[in-house]
């Protein structure tokens, strides 16, 4: 097995406000191998964006946000790592964009409205590569071609408002790819686009990943997209990873009741292969991070809730065979029934 391209260990994020501080992300752990895609899914407000921004330390000043844990990229020698959360401000700037890059949800606002496309891409190269303006511009042109923008030469001098949403997202992708990063974080890169454009962008990302061998963290709440792009999936709820495993296994046989609920509320049931389950929604909504329920954060909404078991301590993320992990107080029971169903 090759060394992971990105490791997150016990990542915690708290925001400090006048009224006190609120922990929004709790002990998030995952690894992504080179060339692999990990999908991060969960309802709105579950902490996906905060996690992704924390990985690149883009959340803001130290007096407003505190981060703990480790975010590791491979270091200079084998078995050596750089911790993005531990390096100084200068060093993190040298790593951002060069070794770890990001694509954002809103292509319409992600580009500087008064700067030409070419300049925005070239900028991403110039300040890392130390190369000339001319070389950076040539690289920008190459990138525009690579992300499939028609007539790239004339587009270099366009402004963002002259491009459609899908084209702008391609430009954002070109910026992210400029330094051929080892890790690409994509925070719902297709949510704001219409369906056909969505499919094009997904195909583009997959192809670019094949070409560059990047590790990708793909954030989405669309299970259709998960099955299409991801190798593994991590499900988040209230700032914690609650289930993780290979896409096929998780979609076919979700173990954590939250994952099962999420899948049951997806209209496109074929993809999960759940026979005839009625379209359901999970009652209630994601809790306020400042007032998380005792024990498993999901228990007030859970169908499998057992008093005394689920509302005691926060259950640990238990390791299962087959690189599967779940965080559920009743994990033992699910595993047992899983095994008996295999035995049948």
């Amino acid at each position, binding site marked *: 097995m090759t060394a992971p391209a990105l490791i997150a260990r016990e990542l915690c994020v708290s925001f400090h406000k006048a009224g006190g501080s609120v922990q929004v992300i709790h002990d998030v752990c995952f690894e992504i191998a080179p060339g692999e895609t990990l999908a991060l899914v969960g309802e709105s407000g579950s902490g996906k964006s905060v996690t992704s921004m924390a990985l690149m330390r883009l959340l803001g000043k130290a007096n407003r946000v505190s981060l703990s844990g480790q975010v590791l990229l491979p270091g200079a020698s084998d078995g050596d790592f750089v911790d993005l959360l531990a390096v100084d401000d200068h060093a993190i700037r040298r790593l951002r964009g060069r070794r770890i890059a*990001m694509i954002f949800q809103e292509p319409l*606002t992600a580009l*500087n409205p008064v700067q030409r496309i070419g300049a925005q891409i070239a*900028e991403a190269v110039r*300040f890392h590569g130390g190369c000339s303006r001319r070389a950076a511009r040539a690289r920008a042109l190459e990138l525009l071609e690579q992300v499939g923008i028609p007539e790239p030469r004339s587009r270099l001098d366009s402004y963002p408002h002259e491009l459609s949403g899908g084209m702008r997202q391609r430009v954002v992708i070109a910026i992210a790819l400029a330094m051929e990063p080892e890790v690409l974080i994509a925070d719902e890169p297709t949510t704001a686009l219409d369906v056909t454009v969505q499919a094009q962008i997904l195909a583009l990302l997959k192809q670019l990943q094949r070409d560059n061998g990047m590790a990708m963290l793909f954030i989405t709440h669309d299970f259709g997209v998960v099955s299409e792009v991801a190798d593994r999936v991590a499900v988040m709820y209230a700032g914690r990873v609650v289930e993780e495993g290979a896409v096929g296994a998780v979609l076919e046989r979700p173990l954590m009741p939250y994952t099962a609920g999420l899948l049951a509320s997806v209209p496109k049931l074929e993809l999960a292969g759940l026979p005839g389950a009625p379209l359901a929604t999970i009652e209630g909504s994601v809790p306020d991070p400042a007032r998380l329920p005792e024990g498993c954060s999901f228990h007030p909404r859970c169908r499998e809730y057992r008093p005394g078991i689920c509302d005691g301590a926060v259950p640990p993320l238990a390791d299962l065979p087959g690189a599967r992990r779940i965080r559920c107080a009743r994990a033992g029971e699910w595993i047992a029934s899983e095994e008996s169903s295999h035995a049948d």
Partner: protein
Amino acid sequence: MGRYLIGRLGQSVVVLFLVSLIGFMILNLAPGGPLSQFALTPGMSQADIQRLAVQMGLDRPLIVQYIDWLGRLLRGDWGESFRDGRPVLAIIVEHLWATLLLMGTSMAISIVVGTLVGIAGAIRRYSIFDYLATVGAMVALSIPTFWFGLVAIYLFALKLAWLPAGNMITIGDGSVLDYLHHLVMPALVLALVNVAIWSRYMRSSTLDVLHQDFVRTARAKGLPRYRVLVHHIVRNALLPMITLGGLQLPTILGGALVAETVFTWPGMGRLFLDSIGYSDYPVVMGILMLSAIFVLLGNLLADLLVALADPRVRLA
């Protein structure tokens, strides 16, 4: 572009016409008037005054006087001063550049200082600096310019004797240094309010930009901090300030009038007040029209600059 300019100029002509009409009527409906001072002159008979009125054309109906004045103006004849019979335009031009010097200097100071203070306040929001800048701006905005002027004269001219109390040059000197020496105090006093206004707007404009997605994109590229600040944050935060600059012109003109009076600065503002005192209507109307043209052109220029600086804006 051409059509836009023609439209804007057409609008301006309408505005100028209204300004001239309203200004002329108000001026002539006010009690007193150019003839009242002669009434007190010993040896002036009623017949003499009547003769003067005919001579100056003041015996005609107001509307006729207005049309006559406007007609001449359109032909480039700004009329003659009632006071000394010299051409109005020549008198105004004599005073114009003093005002431009004062306003230009003071505006440059306000823009530079106000912008820097505003940016610093926004990126160090809630810091001691931000707090002091906010309080300072509130104080500057709530105290009138003439009061600041008088305090400054008292302090720096009378007590400390660092700077002259007024006028533009020392008689018999007139070197560049002498000009600057006289310019410092009125320019700073006039700038004070505008620094306050400008810094507040710049602060909120910067705060608006600070949290926009494209700034996050710029940070995610790994750009150096100054690059993000200058090319992405400030560049965008300045856009609304251009329009603001245009809109501020009348305020600055009004401030200049006060500052010129307090510091006996020989500019258009002083000339305006003096001319009103003498009921020198041709000069008053001349200054009124010139100021209106200045403000209209300033706003047109601001709009053109916005279109130049912001590719999303199209002139139509």
